[in-house]
């Protein structure tokens, strides 16, 4: 027998106007396990709460029902009230007789009957309420940043400045990412390297930052505050502790390979750093192309190395470390536009992408900053830009707008005008989207002062005629076909997710959308968090972004991570799933359904037939569980239950409202 108290609120006339509250209280007093019922003008007010507290003492109540407004409004209020009266705050239910009754049912008789039903339902459930406790877990005060582009570097610097150790894992031999490949940045046209490289150096010299370049995350175990992360440090073939980065090895290396950093427009050696300002400025050997690894002969780099750092025997190394938070900042790739055969990419060397163009205008790029077309190194006079290559095209590419292309194309056109006197740029576009600060002005300047000619329409074909590329398209504004004889064509390829994004998402247990971009926990309210507690997102891995947006998001992700790491203990909600281990069969169907990776198998030992036997059961990590209850329905045996919303409680409610 429980001792339930029922408190019916008038809410001024909000409830009492259309519900006979006295009658509700009188009927409630007749319900089983109810020992006290009353009504009061404003239950949530100080005196109203005092009524509850007094009744708890006077009638020795062990369960409380308040019939008033929505629990979404005042459940926390009344729980605190119970707590201050010395009761467990979870021995409490609300009957929503305002939003769900008095405000929607003007017929007083019918509204009163429904109110009585709703109170009966709450009273039936409250009897089955159990005292619940919040739980807490410790936190490893250390963060892992995956990806060392501008977003990753910014996250690392922010977290490190807040006083927490950070590790950056970067799969390339150097940090810097895409931004390092870019020449100038819009809309200010300041040099990308000039603003990026100081940050790279800051990161490398920061006492709280450790950079693991040429490394990848192999395995993630554990949960928020307590991740165990295995990192594969790929064999560099160079002993980092001995190498001084003097550069003798790559000067002497006889093998030349197309440089990935220069988008295959320039060459690098088989032992190399991707670019001169690389951090760490220590080389790796590209084992696929190195003569020593291919044929066994050569070994020049080892001979010339003054410190004996070159080590052909080096193996991949796996390390496992503990982290409290993870920030994913793995960036993007360029859309593979080979699906657009009509643009002639691959067939005509002078059809290039935006990133190629960045390398061509970069002073430290393969052409020392002179815009020369790849085929014959002639300086182009007419350049055609084609926008929306792979973006806003559901048939062949991606449905989304890639956000950055309008601006970088405008930048490219400006740079063509500045660097090649007498040149002319044409830009084929669908729309011009310039939603950033100073962006519209920049675009206007490109079109008006720098004489780039914007043509609204799609390009149907690019073909070679002599040493020219003929671009045929349509100007949809005047409804006429246009043909331009160009020296070079630059495609504004969409930003797409990295091809291995899905694998990383599965490793981390985060979700990703149809385009393989990682999904934020809420598109508006939790843009840098993921559904996996303790894993945050920064930069273009979440969706196309330019540099200022990536940096802003990096700062936001860092502050979320700092917020987590600055706690000593993390408190988690009491409404979590619970496993009855004695009945669990360990089928683990629940595991695949949990969106938070909160359920895992564990082995328990029990005595069976006189000997000890091991058995697998499901175990819920109470700090990860968010209390959705999806697992409880998947469990056929009913041995998973959601505390606060147990099967028994809900069935009791069903029975009560069906009477």
């Amino acid at each position, binding site marked *: 027998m429980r001792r339930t108290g029922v408190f019916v609120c008038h809410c001024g006339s909000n409830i009492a106007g259309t519900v006979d509250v006295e009658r509700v209280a009188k009927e409630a007093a007749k319900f089983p396990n109810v020992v006290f019922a009353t009504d009061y003008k404003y239950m949530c007010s100080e005196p109203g709460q005092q009524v509850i507290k007094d009744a708890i003492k006077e009638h020795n109540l062990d369960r409380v029902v308040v019939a008033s407004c929505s629990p979404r409004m005042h459940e926390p209020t009344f729980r605190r009230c119970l707590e201050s009266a010395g009761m467990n705050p979870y021995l409490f239910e609300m009957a929503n007789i305002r939003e769900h009754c008095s405000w929607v049912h003007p017929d007083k008789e019918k509204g009163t009957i429904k109110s009585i039903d709703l109170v009966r339902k709450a009273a039936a459930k409250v009897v089955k309420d159990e005292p619940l406790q919040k739980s807490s877990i410790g936190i490893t005060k250390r963060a892992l940043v995956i990806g060392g582009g501008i977003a990753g570097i910014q996250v690392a610097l922010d977290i490190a400045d807040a006083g927490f150790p950070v590790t950056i894992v970067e799969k390339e031999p150097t940090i810097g990412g895409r931004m390092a490949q870019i020449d100038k940045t819009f809309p200010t046209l300041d040099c990308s390297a000039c603003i990026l490289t100081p940050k790279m150096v800051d990161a490398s010299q920061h006492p709280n930052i450790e950079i693991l370049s040429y490394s990848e995350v192999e395995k993630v175990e554990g949960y928020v505050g307590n991740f165990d992360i295995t990192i594969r440090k790929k064999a560099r073939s160079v002993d980092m502790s001995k190498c001084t980065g003097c550069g003798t090895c790559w000067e002497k290396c006889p093998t030349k390979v197309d440089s990935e950093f220069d988008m295959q427009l320039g060459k690098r050696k088989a032992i190399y750093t991707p670019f001169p300002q690389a951090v760490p400025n220590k080389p790796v050997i590209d084992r696929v192309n190195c003569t020593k690894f291919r044929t066994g002969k050569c070994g020049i780099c080892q001979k010339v190395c003054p410190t004996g750092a070159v080590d052909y025997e080096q193996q991949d190394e796996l390390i496992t470390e503990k982290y409290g938070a993870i920030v994913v900042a793995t960036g993007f790739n360029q859309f593979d536009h080979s699906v657009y055969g009509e643009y002639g990419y691959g067939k005509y060397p002078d059809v290039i992408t935006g990133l190629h163009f960045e390398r061509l205008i970069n002073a430290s790029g393969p052409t020392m900053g002179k815009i020369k077309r790849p085929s014959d190194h002639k300086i182009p006079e007419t350049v055609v830009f084609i926008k929306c290559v792979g973006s806003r095209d559901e048939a062949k590419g991606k449905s989304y707008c890639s956000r950055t292309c309008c601006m970088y194309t405008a930048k490219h056109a400006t740079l063509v005008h500045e660097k090649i006197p007498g040149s002319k740029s044409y830009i084929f576009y669908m729309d011009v989207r310039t939603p950033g600060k100073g962006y519209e002005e920049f675009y206007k300047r490109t079109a008006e002062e720098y004489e780039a000619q914007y043509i609204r329409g799609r390009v149907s074909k690019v073909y070679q005629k002599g040493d020219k590329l003929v671009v045929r398209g349509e100007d949809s504004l005047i409804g006429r076909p246009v043909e331009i004889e160009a020296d070079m064509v630059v495609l504004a390829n969409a930003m797409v997710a990295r091809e291995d994004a899905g694998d990383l998402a599965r490793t981390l247990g985060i979700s990703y959308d*149809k385009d393989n971009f990682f999904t934020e926990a809420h598109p508006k309210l939790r843009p840098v968090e993921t559904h996996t507690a303790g894993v945050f997102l920064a930069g273009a891995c979440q969706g196309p972004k330019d540099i200022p947006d990536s940096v802003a998001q990096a700062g936001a992700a860092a502050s979320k991570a700092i917020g987590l790491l600055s706690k000593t203990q993390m408190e988690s909600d009491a409404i979590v799933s619970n496993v009855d281990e004695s*009945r*669990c*069969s*360990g*089928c*683990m*169907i629940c595991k*695949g*359904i949990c969106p938070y990776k909160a359920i895992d*198998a564990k082995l328990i030992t029990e005595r*069976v*037939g006189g*000997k000890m*036997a091991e*058995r*697998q059961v499901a175990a819920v990590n109470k700090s990860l569980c968010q209390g959705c209850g999806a697992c409880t329905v*998947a469990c*056929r*045996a*009913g*041995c998973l239950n959601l505390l606060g919303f147990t*099967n*028994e409680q809900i*069935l009791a409610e069903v029975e009560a409202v069906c009477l």
Partner: protein
Amino acid sequence: MITEKMRAAAKELLEKGEVETVIGWEKGTFWYNSTPAFISKPEQADRLVFDEFCANNLAKYLLDYRNADGKIAVFVKGCDARAVNRLLQDNQVKREKVYLIGIPCPGMKEAPKTGAAQDTASLPLLAKCQSCATPNPVIYDQLLGDPVPAREVPNRFAGVEALEAKGADEKYERWGKLFSECIRCYACRNVCPACNCRECAFDANGLNWLGKQNNLQENQMFNITRAMHVAGRCIECGECERVCPMGLPLMDINRKIIKDLNELFGSYDAGLNLEDRPPLGHYKLDDPEKFM
């Protein structure tokens, strides 16, 4: 003869000590029944038989050996093999703890109406075998005999479709009549390889999912819940229907669900492939949408 091969295989496994028990069939009290046999000594191998009456799905007996020290060998027909996959997918047995001896199944026969000896060829195929599409084991360590050609299965959903076409009240009346015959002996559950919970929700104390009364409503509750629990997991061995003492057409319910799952969420047959996830254990973003 499969029987000889069975005996030889069992004998060898037991002699070499590779398995501690072999689960097969042996002759029962009458010539027209073959019952499960559990042998642990090589000399018992000669008890084993394989004939037209080995209808019992043996896979579920593996659950009784969860804590065995050694391996258990079990003979599997097509349906038994799918049942083993069910148990593997549900983490109820470990693959390395079982040794599967596959037997391509020619189809099992009904027991004769009278006990008098007669030519088994004239006996009709069991209902569960008539619509079987997987007579050959889909998982095994060793296969006895040659695979049999897959049986021509006419539309296995024909019965379901006929019922679907009936009016609501007619349907309710039909099922109501059938369910009021149910004696809730739970034989359907006990024999079902998909019903492999340590303790069934209906047996649990305090869960209150099912009343104790044997009346139409509670029987409906039981049968619908049972159907939902095996939804997407039923391997169509038909054992539930075969063992029902009241002769309830339980496969009409299971097949209805299988048909709907296939129509709604794409082709799926439980127990054929360990990698395929049961349809109610995952989802697709573009699943049919009727709830807008």
